[in-house]
């Protein structure tokens, strides 16, 4: 009853607001009211009051957005009689309305994200049996070894969980392939992994044929196991020791729970972070999703399965005959299906696995294409907004998640709209300079502020736009193709363990330079117009400003596609852990300062550390957090700094035995709190103003860097040509 009254009150208030917003007031009133609303939002943002104030600020922002929508709808569309203006004008209008619609959806989802859940302790005796699946297709055994070792080292009674390596790279089909070389490689892989599993205490499982890709592989795993819970880790997602204990408790609480999802934490930067050098200081792209959006989805029982780092209930999966495989994003599809059957999901906001993400721009785009196409397939085949069984909030949640991937269309339209005017003199937006200033500027500022309000700690200003832009160029054709031919896309595994040995331009960089050049021409056209057509300078200034914004984004993207050479593939995580350094006989007290997947930095106390290191095969020895006896890990010294009574060594692991993998996994993956601490160190909100200024600087520098790479690569190509011509 209270809920009902509450809903009625809300509806009346919202209707009043809608009424006030849709009054056809004059420009002056909008400008002044907009300024006042903006000022209140700024004050609220600076004071950061919590609770209802956050929602009041968002309501204020929404009022300005709705006023913009009203104005845009009622007075800016070109007349239908001028088709050459009307059609692009309508497209631009639809693109803007899509953006507003997505804003409203995301407001609904993240209006009040659930706070982090407290852990659910479970009595030791009640811990359920778990099958841990690690599906693999073509990953290196070395990478798999770390993951399997970390999985096996999880803090959980050994008899209650089984780690399964589900190998799709060594299926009977692959081993008997027509291509003799490929068949031989598959056989070698099969045997090697089988041995590795045996050594590490995991079970190896493969199957006859590679049907239904990852979903088929997982279903094969389901068919060969029987524990009530199933944990899934991607081949490169090594779990922390606490993973199972942090997650299985929820299943005891709710019999209809099918999923506990945890965030994906990455040890390496994505291409944007690497090339723009923001990994250490700016929150990662996926943190917006895992830090806010999944929590928001969780409020509406809409957190969905992300393919890895999750625990699922076998009973639920059996209801749908395992994982769904119509789309190439089997994870989300499975979640939609189970949600619609009344199963619940839970999201645990704590990184419990650490993984790798695509390092090169090309594989990054490959991964995003899969996501975008998969989500389009879900939209096409499952159509969440009208799917029976989903609650209304869940429908909105899935709408947001799937429709999000249409962004390449509006992004492309925003990119080219100003050029319609600058190059072809089309009037696709009928407004005077003053109106544009009053309505569009206030809308844009409010939009930035709302985004900052919602995601400020997780996403800095303009970064979303940059990510969308760099993806749009290649995602647009992918999304169009899946729309035309929804069954065509097939599952492709994303390569994640590449490294960039030399600085170079990405193989996908060409369109970015072309677009940049076109936008630059647009600026020239704008300048010429201001000079030659002073009677419409106001409109030209506004459109030119818009084009300038696009140019800044495009310039920044040039930096993204200019791949910077990098020594280590993964970043170091500070651990500060005691150990001993020695050669098997002599041991010196030492401290492991930080670790990465490939090596560690060790500070050794004692004057003769250097001699010791030079003397023979050095080891580091430490007691694993998983318990047991101290183990020795052989290393190679890569570099060193020597002080008076202490030396610091940069070491690379030498992993020759399964035990070594366990030790490395224990070093890196044992303690999930390190990852949280690292993430926290980046979660800082620079604010709209400083964020914008920072982005401006970044964009200018990256434009320069991108152009420099182009010049160098052009030069080297030329050299190569002339070099080849020489006898």
């Amino acid at each position: 009853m209270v809920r009902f009254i509450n809903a009625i009150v809300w509806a009346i208030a919202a209707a009043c607001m809608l009424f006030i917003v849709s009054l056809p007031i004059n420009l002056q009133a909008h400008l002044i009211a907009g300024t006042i609303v903006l000022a209140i939002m700024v004050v609220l943002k600076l004071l950061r009051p919590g609770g209802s104030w956050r929602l009041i600020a968002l309501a204020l922002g929404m009022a300005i957005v709705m006023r913009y929508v009203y104005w845009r709808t009622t007075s800016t569309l070109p007349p239908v009689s001028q088709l050459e203006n009307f059609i692009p004008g309508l497209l631009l209008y639809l693109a803007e309305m899509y953006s507003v619609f997505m804003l409203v959806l995301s407001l609904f989802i993240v209006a009040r994200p659930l706070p982090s859940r407290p852990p659910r302790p479970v009595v030791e005796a009640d811990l359920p049996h778990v099958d841990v699946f690690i599906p693999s297709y073509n990953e290196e055994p070395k990478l798999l070894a770390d993951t399997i070792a970390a999985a096996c080292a999880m803090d959980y009674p050994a008899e209650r969980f089984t780690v399964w390596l589900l190998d799709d790279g060594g299926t009977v089909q692959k081993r008997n392939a027509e291509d003799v070389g490929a068949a031989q490689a598959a056989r070698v892989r099969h045997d090697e992994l089988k041995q590795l599993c045996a050594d590490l205490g995991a079970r190896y499982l493969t199957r006859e044929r590679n049907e239904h890709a990852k979903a088929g592989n997982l279903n094969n795993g389901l068919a060969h196991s029987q524990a009530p819970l199933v944990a899934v880790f991607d081949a490169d997602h090594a779990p922390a020791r606490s993973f199972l204990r942090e997650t299985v408790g929820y299943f005891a609480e709710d019999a209809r729970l099918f999923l506990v999802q945890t965030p994906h934490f990455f040890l390496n930067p994505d291409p944007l972070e690497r090339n723009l050098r923001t990994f250490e200081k700016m929150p990662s792209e996926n943190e917006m999703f895992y830090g806010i959006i999944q929590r928001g989805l969780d409020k509406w029982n809409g957190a969905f399965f992300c393919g890895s780092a999750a625990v699922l209930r076998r009973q639920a999966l059996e209801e749908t005959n395992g994982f769904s495989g119509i789309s190439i994003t089997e994870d989300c599809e499975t979640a939609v299906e189970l949600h619609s059957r009344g199963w619940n999901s839970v999201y645990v906001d704590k990184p419990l696995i650490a993984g790798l993400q695509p390092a090169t721009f090309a594989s990054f785009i490959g991964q995003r294409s899969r996501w975008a196409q998969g989500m389009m397939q879900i939209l096409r085949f499952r159509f969440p907004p009208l799917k029976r069984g989903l609650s209304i909030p869940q429908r909105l949640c899935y709408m947001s998640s799937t429709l999000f991937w249409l962004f390449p269309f509006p992004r492309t339209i925003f990119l080219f709209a100003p050029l319609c005017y600058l190059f072809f003199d089309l009037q696709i937006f009928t407004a005077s300079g003053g109106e544009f200033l009053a309505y569009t500027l206030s809308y844009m500022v409010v939009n930035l502020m709302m985004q900052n309000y919602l995601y400020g700690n997780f996403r800095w200003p303009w970064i979303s736009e940059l990510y969308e832009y760099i993806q749009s160029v290649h995602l647009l054709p992918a999304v169009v193709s899946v729309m035309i031919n929804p069954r065509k896309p097939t599952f492709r595994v994303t390569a994640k363990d590449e490294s960039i040995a030399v600085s170079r331009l990405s193989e996908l960089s060409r369109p970015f330079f072309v677009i940049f050049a076109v936008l630059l021409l647009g600026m020239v056209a704008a300048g010429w117009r201001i000079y030659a057509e002073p009677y419409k300078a106001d409109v030209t200034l506004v459109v030119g400003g818009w084009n300038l914004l696009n140019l800044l984004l495009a310039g920044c993207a040039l930096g993204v596609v200019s791949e910077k050479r990098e020594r280590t593939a993964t970043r170091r995580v500070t651990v500060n852990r005691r150990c001993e350094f020695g050669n098997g006989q002599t041991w010196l007290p030492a401290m492991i300062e930080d670790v990465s997947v490939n090596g560690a930095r060790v500070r050794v106390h004692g004057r003769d550390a250097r001699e010791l290191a030079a003397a023979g095969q050095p080891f580091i020895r430490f007691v694993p957090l998983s318990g047991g006896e101290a183990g020795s890990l052989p290393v190679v010294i890569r570099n060193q700094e020597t002080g008076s009574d202490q030396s610091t060594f940069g070491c690379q692991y030498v992993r020759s035995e399964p035990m070594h993998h366990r030790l490395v996994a224990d070093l890196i993956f044992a303690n999930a709190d390190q990852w949280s601490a690292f993430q926290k160190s980046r979660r800082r909100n620079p604010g709209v103003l400083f964020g914008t200024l920072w982005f401006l600087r970044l964009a200018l520098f990256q434009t320069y860097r991108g152009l420099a790479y182009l010049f160098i690569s052009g030069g080297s190509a030329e050299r190569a040509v002339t070099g080849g011509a020489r006898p």
Partner: protein
Amino acid sequence: MTRFLAALLFPLLLAGAAGAQVAPFDMSPERPPVQAPPAAPVPAQPAEPPTSPVAPAPPPVAPPAAANAPAGAYRRYLLPRPQFVLAGEIAERSWAFHVTERQAQSPAEIHLRYLNAVVVAPEASSLTVQINGISVVAEAIAASDRAKDLIAKVEAGTLRPGRNEVRIRAVQRHRTDCTIQSTYELWTEVQPAGTFIAFADPEAGSLSGFVDVRTLGPGASAQPRVTIVAPSLVHTDNAGDVIRLAQAIALQSNLPGYRYRIASAPAAEKDDAEILQVFLGAAEELRDIVPDLPASGPFVGFLPQREGGPQRLLVSGTTREQWLDAIERVVAPVSRPVGMQRATLTTEETRLPDAPMLFGGGDTSFANLGIRSEQFSGRRYTSSVTFGMPADFYADAYGQARILLDAAYSDAVLPGSLINIYVNGNVAASFPITTRRGAVLNHFPIKVTMRHFKPGLNEIMIEVNLRTAQDEACLPGATADTTPRFAIFDTSTLVVPRFGRILERPNLAELAGTAYPYGLAAQPVQVATERTDLASLSATANLFARMALNAGRALPLTFTSSINALRGSDAIFVGWAGGLPAGVLAQVNVDEAAVLRWASAQRGAPAASGTPGISVETWREQMGGGLLREWMRSFETWLSTTFNITEDMLRFLPGRDTPFAPPASAALAVAQGLNPVGNGVWTVFAAPDQAALSAGVESLAASDLWSSLSGHVTTLDRSLQSVTVTPAGATSFHQTQPPSLANYRLIAANWLSTNILSYSLLLVVACLVVGIATSALLSRFGRRH
């Protein structure tokens, strides 16, 4: 921005036109040196667009020495306005006039006297007159040194008994200059005193029934006078009936320019301006003053015209009842029943076509508004339309009308050309032509702000400034080129959306536009004036004649002297400062003490001492101020030029009015306020003395100044040439439409657009409530921990 530019440009153009009468280099050496004649009736402001609400004084007219009309011929003067200037490269006026059957059959000549600017090139300029579509005059414009009289025969059959249409059109080109600015120097003034149709038939002047009032026309004088002689006024109380008759004459003639005088006996000396004498009363009362009174009555009709005298109309009967009945019989055909909505405002005697009433929510084609499709080869095309708005129009702050323009321009037209829209003389839209290579505009939308719309008659002028390379080069003879550059089509439409409709009180514009609220009165309008004072009565007659024209009906009225009887009704007060009942001025928020001082100041008594010029503002200005103030000021300027934002917009509610104190320079003050009960409107016409009252009301009612009445108080200055408007602060609303959410929404939009802080507050409060409600909702719906 462009709007701002246009606003900036306009005064420049005016300034440029100020030197228009300097003769340019003359290219005809055989002619005597060009020299403006000393008495040349030069229009005071030829550069002003013809829409100017304040017409300059009619110039003194030299006696028509050159007019050699046949002796004894009857002249039907034609021009409906005392000031008749055809300005710009293209100008056209058309209107309707009536002639009697006898006149229509008489051989006739048309006489036209005009004077034009020296810069008008005769070889490329022409003046044409059409009557009923038949061309009667087609002349090169060549009368720059002195007024020229054109005489042309009106072929038999051209004139029709009853209604006729006349169209005067001037096409003018500059002698030497090809700039757009130079077109403001082009004007031809047609002079009323020399412009008439002369009927050879000596009996053409004999009129018969009351309907022939409409054939009187404007007369030779700039201030045609109608005298109503009612001997009975001396002893009986029938002033109301006399004023009903004045209204009937106004409605029958449909000309707003007549000045009415009420007398109890004919004037001793002859008045040249007098066009009509009306004798009203019982036969025996009139017998002494009308020697040729017909022997038997009742009688309503014209008496034979006397040599050199005005037409004489008799409204009489053997008894009082009979002549009162006669008045009602002449009123009835020209009045409309109350409560019947008008489709048009009847303006055809001054301007064709009748202005359609626009109530919003529809579109009106230019064909219906009187703009014809035409091609244009000059550099500044102008054309205008008129239409009527209802009295309860309430959308001046937010409203936007649209013109869907069907037009075309050739490839000679350069970008930077402008289409400007003026509403009632104010820039309302400015749309730049930006494409080269010409274009055909098909229902091209131009947004026109409704800020300057007002109740009653409105005028929209379309001005197209065409820049061409040819004009920039300006080779000799360039202006005479007749290659069309621009075409406008009558399929263009004016779209006035639904607008907020509610009456604001006080608002004199409603009175000026449609005589609201008195024009709708079914019961007699209460008038308080000194009935015995003929000057006050004449003023009232002028007032009602004008209101009758605006309302389209003759208003019933009664005179009251008891202010208590008027407390709960709509009433009009006409009086001089000392003669108004106590409390009336205070009720309409006019400072009574100041009015008394005003009256004494006019009589030459020393004005009550005040200390003008000392205010905080002036001190602040003198102090200058620091950098911050300077910065604030420049920001304010930027805001006001870019967005028209001024400080007074930043308000929650309209400010309380301080009582109005008439300035010493005012001859007449018109003030409006609510009546004490609050259910009606009191309008007060006050002047320092009787003479100023009758002169002031007469000038106001008989001229275009009437349409400038607006706001809370409007004062007419002592020259009787200009008005000053004091806008109403706090107003109350009076509902006219059935309650509907759609109308309330538009009313709210307009009110909130003028009280912007209230809108902001409302918006913020709504957001606050929505935010809190959402917060409550979120803690009850979905998961929570």
